[in-house]
């Protein structure tokens, strides 16, 4: 899988770290990268279902480019939202849809991204992609 340059650099950076706790700390730091989606705007429609933590996303188009707003109570989920934001914000929908969720696994953050597993990140990724398809 070829990733956008910024994401590919991030994956490499993550892969250089042996300690999982350090990798998690890096993901937590990525939580600041999200475009905030304040809790007062959270609804059942914006909720990421099947997620252990409370997580919400909203995808908009601004001048034909993706703008993902997101928020979660778990730093790990919000950090992954931050990484996804880096990967897709400002992209054209067709380009964003090419992204695979495997980058989280390649970064050594999550062990399994099986769709059958109650996995906050996978559910969030799928919801974002579904919304992009609707906007496309």
């Amino acid at each position, binding site marked *: 899988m070829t990733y956008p340059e910024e994401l590919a650099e991030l994956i490499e950076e993550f892969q250089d770290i*042996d*300690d*999982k*706790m350090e*990798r*998690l*700390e890096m993901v*937590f730091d990525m939580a600041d990268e999200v475009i905030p989606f304040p809790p007062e705007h959270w609804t059942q429609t914006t909720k990421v279902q099947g997620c*252990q*933590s409370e997580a919400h996303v909203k995808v908009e188009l601004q001048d034909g480019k993706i703008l993902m707003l997101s928020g979660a*109570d*778990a*730093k*790990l*989920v919000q950090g992954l939202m931050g990484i996804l934001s880096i990967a897709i914000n400002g992209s054209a929908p067709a380009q964003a849809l090419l992204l695979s969720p495997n980058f989280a696994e390649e970064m050594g953050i999550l062990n399994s991204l099986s769709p059958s597993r109650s996995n*906050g990140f996978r559910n969030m990724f799928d919801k974002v992609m579904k919304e992009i398809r609707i906007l496309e």
Partner: protein
Amino acid sequence: MLVALRDDFPILKREVNGYPLIYLDNAATTQKPQVVLDAMNEYYTSSNSNVHRAVHTLAGEATEGYESCRSQLKEWFNAERAVITSGTTEAINLVAHAWGRANLSEGDAIVLTEMEHHSDIVPWQMLAEERGIELRYVPVLEDFTLDMEVYAASLENAKLVCVVHTSNVLGVRNPLEKITELAHSNGALVLIDAAQGVPHERIDFQESDADFMAFSAHKMCGPTGIGALLVRPEVFETMQPFMGGGDMIETVTINGSTYQTNEHKFEAGTPRIAEAIGWCAAFEWMSKLDLRKEHQRLIGIAQWVANELRSMGISVYGRHDAADSAVVSFLHPSIQSEDLAHLFDARGIAVRTGHHCAQPLLHRLGISGTVRASFYLYNTMDEAETFIEQLKYITERFG
């Protein structure tokens, strides 16, 4: 002694993320000693065959292995009837279908508690909807115990009381003797969900005076996919078959069928033979332990952990009395539970987060989930100390 016991569990030698595994998710499932793995492997290697209707040697060995599990269950729990199921959930569903449908009708009431696992709520909700049965829930008080006054008052016209032996979230062991006595004096039968009770306490089913008791093998060092329903003999006779098919029939004609009269009546289809043989090995392995002494050791560890957590300003849900199980549920004031579980995992420590399939209880507690550390036979005080040390480190770094 504990070192030798730990040696029986090959999985405990592994590392997770570069750290020795500290497995504290025992309330979800326990690890399996080598003898259980060997017994199941031996069955598939040497005796694999279907049980009951065949005369060849392998079928005889498989049948003997499977039925030995039933004998073991009856002996271990002092029970006269032991139906082998896929686990606690199927055992409770079996009561709902096989006893409930035959004995409950519109206007009857079932008493449940807010402490129940979903497996002891949902089957009754389904039956209640189908039959117009009233469900009454006994509240959980602030001290994490059941409101016994409400319980006593809820028994009028009740036909069944369903109560969890020990809460999988709080570790609280309920006053089952009192609950059963009150239920029976009001004419109601009693079902005990003992999934979290059997790993910690040697239960005498007849002495408990309960009518049904459901539990799983995998919470007591046995395999997954197998459990049992113990039933009082008089009640057993009032149960009607639930699933139809092989093994549960006596004769089948195109005009109808007759059924077995023993436990096979409720064990349609090829049963869990390897799992039954594995469970037998687990019973044999556990019979060498002083379970009461082990329980005292484990509740001591849980009490120490709970006190350490409280001293760190962490909310602990549970009281950890002598008879309670070694389960410590808590919420960190500044680190979200899922994040905390990932951070523990980074240090090789396995804990569980979420609603633990007990959403009504968590709703009563005003929370949506907890982090749960649950201790079992092979856990040591050293592991508990490492758990607390790591939590302090994580709190300092991420809190």
